[in-house]
């Protein structure tokens, strides 16, 4: 079946192309319903990636966060009309030790190949997770981002030592907020501190035990473990502050993406015997865990709805440009495209 793919061909320029979907193949045909814009999409859209990367990746359909509706399933796994979250990571081999999102052979939508900006997306049934009608689809649209936090927290659960009296999260943006909500739910007995720069944003973390401005942290304050959700140029300062305020043998979970190498005070890492681990992307198990938490703790979905920013209906290519431009000028929040293609 002919399928319209909306590809970025140059910075700020989308064009249509057509793929041919095999209706007989063992795959599920999903119609995207709500798509969420990520920083990574913006870097392509604005042409902020190095020129050789742009050359190699474009033309390519953007977006790796989204929820859709099953329209046709040759595998018999789903009913047409089912709401499903789409998993952008596509493993190409099985490995009993290494998680699917770290296998170098895995492919990723809107990075290695076309993302979800399409009329239909053909997917293997194990790349889809059903949600029931009680879950707000606008929130479900950015489950991929949420599952990255859940993935990091699940790894924290196996890596960090058992003294978990106080945990600090550095970063008051979307990622910090999401990580905080899920940490609170998954570790309700741990005291949760949030460290950020923007008082207004910090006031949204009403469920945390305390919030601190990074310019005003009490010198004797100590956390047992920390999550870094800052990224970018501020990564270095955040990591350095964490190292100062973390107790011995604490674990630092890195989640923030930086385009540049970040210097780290290794002397103090050695002295305190710290463990630093990075997390990136997520796999099917993380999506399943995230959706299970949506269903068992519906208040999570309510908290997540606080970071929904603009919602724009998409019927034309001009609407797509408008959504990306709107997203550039936001201060916080996820921009959602109500996909009607």
């Amino acid at each position: 079946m002919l399928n319209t793919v909306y590809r970025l061909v140059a910075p700020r320029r989308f064009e249509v192309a057509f793929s041919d979907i095999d209706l007989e193949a063992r795959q599920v045909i999903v119609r995207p319903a709500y798509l969420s814009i990520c920083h990574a999409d913006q870097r392509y859209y604005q042409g902020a990636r190095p020129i050789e990367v742009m050359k190699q990746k474009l033309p390519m359909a953007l977006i790796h966060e989204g929820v859709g509706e099953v329209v046709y399933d040759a595998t018999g796994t789903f009913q047409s009309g089912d709401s499903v979250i789409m998993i952008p990571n596509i493993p190409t081999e099985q490995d009993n030790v290494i998680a699917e999102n770290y296998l170098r052979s895995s492919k990723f939508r809107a990075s290695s190949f076309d993302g979800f900006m399409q009329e239909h997306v053909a997917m293997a049934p194990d790349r889809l997770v059903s949600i029931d009608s009680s879950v707000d689809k606008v929130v479900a649209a950015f489950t991929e981002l949420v599952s990255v936090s859940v993935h990091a927290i699940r790894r924290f659960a196996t890596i960090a030592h058992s003294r978990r009296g106080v945990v600090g999260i550095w970063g008051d943006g979307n990622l910090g907020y999401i990580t905080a909500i899920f940490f609170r739910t998954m570790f309700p007995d741990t005291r949760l501190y949030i460290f950020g720069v923007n008082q207004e944003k910090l006031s949204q973390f009403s469920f945390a035990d305390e919030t601190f401005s990074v310019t005003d942290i009490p010198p004797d304050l100590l956390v047992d473990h920390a999550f870094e959700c800052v990224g970018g140029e501020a990564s270095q300062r955040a990591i350095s502050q964490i190292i100062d305020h973390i107790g011995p043998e604490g674990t630092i979970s890195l989640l923030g993406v930086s385009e540049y190498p970040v210097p780290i005070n290794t002397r103090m890492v050695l002295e305190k015997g710290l463990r630093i681990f990075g997390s990136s992307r997520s796999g099917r198990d993380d999506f399943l865990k995230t959706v299970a938490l949506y269903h068992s703790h519906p208040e999570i979905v309510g908290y997540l709805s606080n970071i929904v920013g603009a919602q724009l209906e998409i019927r034309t290519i001009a609407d797509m440009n408008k959504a990306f431009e709107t997203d550039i000028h936001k201060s916080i929040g996820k921009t959602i495209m109500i996909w009607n293609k």
Partner: protein
Amino acid sequence: MAETMVFGVILAGGDGQSMEQAKQYQMLGNKPVLVHTIEKFYIHKRLEKILVLCPKKWLDSTQNMMEQYFPKSNGRIVLTESGTTRNETILNAVRFMEKQYGLTQDILFVTHDSVRPFVSYRIIEENIEYGLKYGVVDTVIPSSDTIVYSEDAAKITSVPKRSIMYQGQTPQTFPAFMFKKLYQDMKEEEKAVLTDACKVFVLNGEKVHLAEGENANIKITYPYDLKVAESLMIP
């Protein structure tokens, strides 16, 4: 009254010297254009069946084609003979339905050119939605060219305001039996100037609702169109 039954009706009556030359049977990528078009309707759950109307001489080979490309269709794609004109073809479709379901069943037709394989899911979905809500639907796009009106094909009679001009595409959606009634009551000279089905309703004073088409929903008319279509395919 039972729920309205909605059918996809693919108009593939276009003739040619040979089957290979008829546009609906030409290859686009690795499938005939007709197969691409049917696929767009095939995945719509709301459509009871997809009725395909093609010239009598190609019924058997089209049937083989359906079996080859839709091996699991389970009777969902039905073939029957097309008529001498577009509206006669639609009339054949109505007669076919009468035999199958009787005259009391509400039947909505979503009729579509077999040579518009790029129709989107949304366009078909909105045709079904508006058809159930308003009755008759035409798919259009705003005219990008200025339309010039000339009565003698030599001089301009007038230039209509472009902003109220639209170009007709398909699908065109309407209740099957209403079409038959209005069409059969028309005089032969009225029938002779019909170029599409919606005009039957307009001439009879029926309201026709507009559905938003798309530029990509092109009709493959000339060899050039097929080349353009091929060039837009992702290898």
